[in-house]
């Protein structure tokens, strides 16, 4: 399995691709609220992924140096998801709530699909050897 930095970099790349697609959809289609919700949810989801990455690295450094870590930042991630829902409920004329929720889950889809992809590539490479 690759290092955490490789996985984070790959996920970042795919999330930027997706965000660019959503911006194109927002600009060039009539479904502006749907794509605005997707952009909002994906941005917060991206923030959640970055926060988890940062906290994971801090935890491993703390274990290596014998220090203590008190939190993995779960409350911040839950609060950011709640913020997305509140914004989508408060401004339904700008953000579609369903697409905002799908946007929150984008990171997990990206991570799962990327892992399956990596497993398939790695399995094929091992078979060729």
């Amino acid at each position: 399995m690759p290092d955490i930095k490789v996985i984070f970099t790959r996920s970042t790349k795919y999330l930027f691709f997706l965000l660019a697609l959503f911006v194109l959809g927002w600009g060039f289609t009539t479904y502006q609220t749907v794509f605005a919700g997707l952009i909002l949810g994906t941005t917060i989801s991206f923030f959640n992924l970055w926060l988890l990455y940062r906290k994971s690295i801090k935890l491993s450094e703390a274990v290596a140096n014998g220090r203590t870590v008190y939190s993995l930042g779960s409350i911040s991630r839950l609060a950011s998801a709640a913020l997305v829902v509140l914004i989508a409920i408060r401004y339904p004329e700008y953000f579609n709530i369903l697409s905002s929720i799908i946007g929150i889950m984008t990171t997990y889809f990206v991570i799962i699909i990327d892992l399956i992809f990596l497993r398939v590539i790695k399995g094929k490479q091992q078979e060729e050897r």
Partner: protein
Amino acid sequence: MGALAAAIAIGLAALGAGIGNGLIVSKTVEGMARQPEASGLLRTTMFIGVGLVEAIPIMGVVIAFIALFA
């Protein structure tokens, strides 16, 4: 009833995620302490595991806020 539904949704989701996260992090720290050379692999596994475990309470929070405010 909306507040009760929100409380049950967020509470049970947070309970499950707390147990899951605790197990993941405790086993990772134990593994890092036993084998410091494998800490990169363990860190990656923990990153993915915690990320996927937290998807469920996030959906719980979303459902709770929709039940409360929508």
